C-alpha cells in the first residue's frame, strides 16, 4: 500500500495505514505510532527525520533522558491528541524540532525541566491547559520558540518566572503567554522576561495576553491586537493609574495597570492609536507609561475592533470549525497595515479566505438549498454535516462556486471531527484504479474558467495543502501524483466533491 509521503526521512509513521511490526524506514511500510519511531531513532543515533503522516496520535512523545536532535515533520494533517494522557511531550526535547503538527486537548504541553523546550514551526496548539509544567526547576519556565503557530484556548500559569520565547507570525486566540488564565482573571506574572512577538495576531478580548515588567526585554513588533485585548504591567509607579483603584489583575495593588487596544470599556493606562500605530499620547496616564518604558516595547502595532475568523462567510452564520478550528482566515485589510510583513510571510501566517457553513440557504453552495447534491449526508445536531447512519460513507457535491475572477487556490480546508480517530476521515472514495486505502485527508475538485464544468474531470487534492496538478493531470492528493513536475491551480469556477468516509480500509 502506498502511503504517499511527501517528505523524505529516516522513519515514517502513519496512524491510518501503519503497523509497528514494520521496519518504519520505508514510506510504503511505516510505523503506526510515534513511540515506535522514537524508539528506533534513539537506537540509531542523532539527527533523525521522523515523518508523521495524516492521522490522530493519542500518545505522549517521550524522549526519556536521551538527547535528541531529531525532527518530527508532520506530512499532512497530523493531530497529537491528549485523550488518556497528561503530557504531550516528556523528556529531553531541547534539541528537537516539531513541524506542521497539531497538539490538541492536553493538560500540559511539556513535562520536565527548564531549557528542554523544542522548536515549533507551523504547529497548532488548542485547548492546552498549560504550555509548561509549572513544577519546573525554581518554578521557572523557559519558553520554546514558535514560528507560524496558532494557539487557541491555551494557558500558562502558576510559574514564578517565564524566560525567553519568541513568537514569529503566530496567532494567539483566547490564549495567554504568561501567568493569566484565558479569561483574564488570576494572578499575573511580574517576571516574564525577554519574550518577543513579531508579526503576531493577539486576540484575547477583555483579557490579558501577557503580563510582566516593561524593562525585561519583552517586545511587540508589527503585531495586531483585537480591541480590549490587554497587556498588563507590573510597576509600582503605575499603581495610581489603576482605574478607580479596581484590581483588574486580581494580583493586588502591586500590579500597576494595563494597556488595552482600541475602544475600551474601562480606563487603561494607554490606548494605541490605530491611525498611526502609536500610542495616544493625550491620555492622562501616558507620561507615566513613558516613564516606565512601556512605549519602547511596541513598534508598528495596530488594533482592529474584532476579528471575524469566518469573514466573507457565505451562506451561513453557523460555520462550525471543529477539529480544524485553529486555522482561520482573516480578510480585514487592517490586518495587513502592519509594517512587519515582508509580503512573503503574512501577518500571523494567515491569508484572507472564504468560509461556508452548513446552513440551509440558497447562497450556501454546500447545501441542497444552494444547489449541492448530498449522498448519504444529513445535517447534524453537533453543528455541521454528518454521515447518515445507514451509509458507510457520504458525499457532498457542491454547487459551482464562482470566485468572480480566476484565482490561484492557496488551499481548501475543512473542519472535521470524529469519535473514532483514524477510523473515519474526510477522504475520497473513488472507484476504479484509484480506489486505494486513504492515508491522507483528501477531496475531489473540478475547475475551469467557464461556468459549465460538466466536461471537466474531478481530481484528488489534499485538505489544507496547496492544490497542484502534475503534467499528466493528476491532482496533488492522489497517490499517483508525481511532485517532480507540477503547476498551481488557477480557476474562476470550482466544484468540490467532499466525502466523509468511515470505511477506511475496504473497497467500494
Amino acid at each position, binding site marked *: 500500500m502506498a502511503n504517499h509521503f511527501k517528505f523524505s526521512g529516516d522513519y515514517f509513521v502513519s496512524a491510518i495505514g501503519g503497523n*509497528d*511490526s*514494520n*521496519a518504519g524506514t520505508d514510506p510504503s511500510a511505516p*510505523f503506526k*505510532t*510515534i*513511540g*515506535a519511531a522514537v*524508539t*528506533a531513532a*534513539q*537506537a540509531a543515533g542523532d539527527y533523525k527525520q521522523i515523518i508523521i503522516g495524516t492521522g490522530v*496520535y*493519542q*500518545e*505522549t*512523545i*517521550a524522549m*526519556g*533522558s*536521551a538527547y535528541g536532535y531529531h525532527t518530527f515533520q508532520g506530512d499532512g494533517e497530523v493531530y497529537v491528541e491528549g485523550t*488518556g*494522557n*497528561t*503530557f504531550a511531550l*516528556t*523528556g529531553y526535547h531541547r534539541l528537537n524540532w516539531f513541524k506542521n503538527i497539531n497538539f490538541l486537548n492536553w493538560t500540559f504541553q511539556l*513535562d*520536565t*525541566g527548564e531549557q528542554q523546550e523544542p522548536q515549533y514551526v507551523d504547529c497548532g496548539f488548542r485547548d492546552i491547559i498549560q504550555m509548561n*509544567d509549572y*513544577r*519546573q*526547576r*525554581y*518554578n521557572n519556565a523557559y519558553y520554546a520558540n514558535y514560528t507560524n503557530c496558532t494557539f487557541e484556548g491555551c494557558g500558562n500559569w502558576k510559574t514564578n518566572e517565564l524566560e525567553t520565547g519568541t513568537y514569529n507570525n503566530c496567532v494567539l486566540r483566547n490564549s495567554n503567554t504568561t501567568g493569566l488564565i484565558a479569561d483574564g482573571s488570576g494572578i499575573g506574572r511580574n517576571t516574564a522576561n525577554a519574550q518577543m512577538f513579531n508579526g503576531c495576531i493577539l486576540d484575547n478580548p477583555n483579557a490579558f495576553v501577557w503580563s510582566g515588567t516593561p524593562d525585561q526585554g519583552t517586545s511587540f513588533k508589527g503585531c495586531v491586537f483585537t480591541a480590549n485585548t490587554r497587556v498588563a504591567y507590573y510597576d509600582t509607579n503605575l499603581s495610581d493609574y489603576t482605574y478607580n483603584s479596581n484590581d483588574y489583575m486580581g494580583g493586588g495593588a502591586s500590579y500597576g495597570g494595563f494597556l488595552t487596544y482600541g475602544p475600551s470599556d474601562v480606563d487603561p493606562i494607554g490606548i494605541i492609536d490605530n491611525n498611526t500605530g502609536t500610542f495616544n499620547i493625550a491620555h492622562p496616564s501616558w507620561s507615566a507609561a513613558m516613564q516606565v518604558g512601556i512605549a519602547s516595547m511596541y513598534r508598528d502595532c495596530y488594533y482592529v475592533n474584532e476579528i471575524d475568523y469566518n469573514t466573507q462567510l457565505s451562506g451561513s452564520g453557523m460555520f462550525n470549525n471543529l477539529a480544524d478550528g485553529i486555522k482561520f482566515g482573516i480578510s480585514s485589510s487592517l490586518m495587513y497595515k502592519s509594517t512587519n510583513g515582508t509580503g512573503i510571510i503574512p501577518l500571523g501566517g494567515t491569508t484572507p479566505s472564504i468560509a461556508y457553513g452548513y446552513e440551509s440557504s440558497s447562497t450556501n453552495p454546500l447545501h441542497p438549498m444552494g444547489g449541492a447534491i448530498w449522498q448519504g449526508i444529513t445535517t447534524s445536531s453537533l453543528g455541521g454535516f454528518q454521515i447518515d447512519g445507514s451509509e458507510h460513507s457520504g458525499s457532498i457535491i457542491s454547487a459551482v462556486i464562482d470566485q468572480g475572477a480566476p484565482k490561484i487556490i492557496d488551499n481548501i480546508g475543512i473542519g472535521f471531527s470524529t469519535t473514532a480517530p483514524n477510523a473515519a476521515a474526510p477522504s475520497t472514495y473513488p472507484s476504479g484504479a484509484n480506489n486505494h486505502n486513504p492515508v491522507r485527508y483528501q477531496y475531489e475538485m473540478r475547475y475551469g474558467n467557464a461556468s459549465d464544468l460538466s466536461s471537466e474531470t474531478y481530481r484528488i487534492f489534499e485538505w489544507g495543502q496547496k492544490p497542484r496538478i502534475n503534467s499528466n493531470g493528476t491532482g496533488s492528493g492522489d497517490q499517483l501524483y508525481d511532485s517532480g513536475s507540477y503547476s498551481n491551480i488557477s480557476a474562476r469556477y470550482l466544484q468540490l466533491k467532499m466525502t466523509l468516509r468511515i470505511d477506511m480500509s475496504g473497497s467500494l
Partner: protein
Amino acid sequence: MAIVILPNGSKINTNLDIYHQPRTDEYSGSIDFCTEVMQNNMASVFIPGPNSDLPKRDTQTFIDTSYDTYNYKIVTSFHYKKSSEYAVSATQTKLTREEK
C-alpha cells in the same frame, strides 16, 4: 516518603519525580544535582515489543559513583498505553541513593 539531603546541600523527595519536587527553596537545587548525575553514561533496558526487531524502552539509567558514601542513580521509566504497543502514556524520572 524519603527526604534526602544531596551533596550540594539541597533536599530531594525521592518518592517524587525529579522534575516535580516541592516548590520551596530548600528543594530548588536538587535539579542541579540531578543534571550532574545525568552527565554520566546512560544505560538503557529494553523489553520485548510487538516488533521483534524493535525492543521497547523500559528504563534509562544514569549512575554517579563519584561520591564517597553513596551512589546516586536516576532512572527514567516508560509506561505504555498497552503492553502490545509502543505508544507511551507517561514517563517518570526518579533519583535513588544507594550505599556503596
